[in-house]
């Protein structure tokens, strides 16, 4: 197990390094510079500014400086917001984004699994059809459409909840609904089909023959096996929720990391782009690692430290 973790750790470092490098060169390949919009500044001022942010040095030197900033995790000041450092932006934005993301994943998992299990247990009955209709709708409606829809209906027309910003639990409900519906629908469909398959397995018949209650059979014997495919797609879903937060944060005017990320790209605020990208990718890679560990916990046949299982 320890050997596996160490191996995975080095792979994670490598992945992040590749992502960082790609981001750096892609970023520099985009035409324009942070100072394009500032028409008033003269050439001398601009030169001084570039010198201040090390933009006058050749690209390889900038690259090395950039790698150094990653290792020390100090991305320096933002170009466009001189009073802020990248780290302070991350420090302010991340807790909010994380709150949104964690709630979204939790809501999606709990409601998706419940919906899927109920649909499987009432296979081909009304509840099944209803749940699957909800699921198909959830998959087909993009989160930004759903976001504007819930704002219009729930916030504007019915005036039940606030339309935007991030101040109290009430403010959190609409963005979480908008963001969680898609993943929830995917999880529900997956849980249903894998639950249906699991329920026909022989060990379920054995459990019934033992006289266990239906609840125990479902929760103890079926669910754990049925959730394996859900764990598999959890990594992809996390990535989806992460990118979803960019859009949702923008729509609901939530001051999370997504806002700074999009703003950074638009304004060519190089340190902010770097900082947020490296931060996001580190976070995602770590989550994927956790998902892999979870596999081994759920299914003892999967041994992480050995090649080829049994």
């Amino acid at each position: 197990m320890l050997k596996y973790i160490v191996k995975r750790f080095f792979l994670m470092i490598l992945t992040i390094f590749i992502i960082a490098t790609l981001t750096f060169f892609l970023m520099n390949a985009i035409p324009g510079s942070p100072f394009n919009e500032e028409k008033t500044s003269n050439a001398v001022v601009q030169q001084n500014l570039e010198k201040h942010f090390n933009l006058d040095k050749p690209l390889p030197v900038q690259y090395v400086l950039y790698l150094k900033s990653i290792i020390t995790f100090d991305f320096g000041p933002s170009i466009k917001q001189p009073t802020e450092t990248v780290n302070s932006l991350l420090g302010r934005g991340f807790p909010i984004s994380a709150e949104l993301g964690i709630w979204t994943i939790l809501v999606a998992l709990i409601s998706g699994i419940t919906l899927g299990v109920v649909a499987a247990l009432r296979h081909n009955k009304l509840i099944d059809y209803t749940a699957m209709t909800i699921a198909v709708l959830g998959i087909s409606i993009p989160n930004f459409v759903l976001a504007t829809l819930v704002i219009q209906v729930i916030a504007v027309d019915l005036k039940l909840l606030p339309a935007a910003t991030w101040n109290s639990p009430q403010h959190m409900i609409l963005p979480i609904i908008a963001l969680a519906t898609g993943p929830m629908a995917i999880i529900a469909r997956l849980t249903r089909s894998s639950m249906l398959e699991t329920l026909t397995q022989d060990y379920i018949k054995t459990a019934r023959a033992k006289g266990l209650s239906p609840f125990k059979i479902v929760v103890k014997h079926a669910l754990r096996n049925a959730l394996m495919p859900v764990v598999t797609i959890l990594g992809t879903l996390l990535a989806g929720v992460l990118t979803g937060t960019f859009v949702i944060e923008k729509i609901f005017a939530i001051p999370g990391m997504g806002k700074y990320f999009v703003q950074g790209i638009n304004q060519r605020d190089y340190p902010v782009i770097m900082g947020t990208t490296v931060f996001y990718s580190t976070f995602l890679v770590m989550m994927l690692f956790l998902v892999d560990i979870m596999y081994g916990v759920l299914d003892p046949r999967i041994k992480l430290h050995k090649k080829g299982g049994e």
Partner: protein
Amino acid sequence: MEKILDIKDLHVSFTTYGGEVQAVRGVNLDLHKGETLAIVGESGCGKSVTASSIMKLIPSPPGKITKGSIHFKDQDLTKMSNKDIRKIRGVDISMIFQDPMTALNPTLTVGDQLTEGLKQHKKISSHDANEQAIEMLNLVGIPNPKERMKQHPHQFSGGMRQRIVIAMALICEPELLIADEPTTALDVTIQAQILQLFNKIQEQTGVSIILITHDLGVVAKIADRIAVMYAGKVIEVGTRREIFYNPQHPYTQGLLNSVPRLDQRGDQLIPINGTPPDLFSPPKGCPFTARCPKAMEVCENVYPVHTKLSDTQEVDCWLQDERAKKYIAT
């Protein structure tokens, strides 16, 4: 001897898109305490369905017991609610399924699966349940039971897993054990060991066993009585001796002739030609008529009368009728 199970006129049907399949069409069987009854017959004759309906384990829908009764001691199992039948399952009647590779949950430890039945039905502490499970594993011949309890099913071989399945079925000390083709998925040497284990368990616990199989070799080793099923009916029943040495139904005779025997080397096996009838619309006469070498006109139209040949042997065949005997003689 005390009768513990009495099945009377059991009918089971499955509703499918193609219509109603009458899988079991009036089965009568009984079982005494400490006895081993083998139900034999080819695939699709209704032997597994009969066994599953005893514990109400037929998938419903589409399956349904449409008629008849199953008396276990004083209770009619067919009339029991799902909640009440759960108190019978695993406690009074246990069942073992065909394939030990899939009958155990791969994500739970063997110990967990062994003790959960005990914990469900009896007020027992975890510690005592574990002790009892270890004892049970000892009985079925698993070495190092204490360590093995913590392992998962994939760490056991097929024969070992079947032993665990048997231990699981016996842990609440049931009075009746239903084994649905318990040796079919195992290789021959392991088969013999598992059959010996059945004998040993019966000696030690006095459990009654219903053994479902299509392997007459298995039957010859452990059955006290044999019921032969064909197209959803029991067509002949008798002691092991009677069925093997004095089979009366042409189907039973055909079944025995189609088994290879060591003492008749070189002889060709005699298969039973044809296939069983379609149970969507079962024939009104004897279902074996189309394949029977001794079929008469009456066989096709009227179901044979039930004839008692001895205290233990009974057969459904027109050949037992006085008139048929005269007809054959002339």
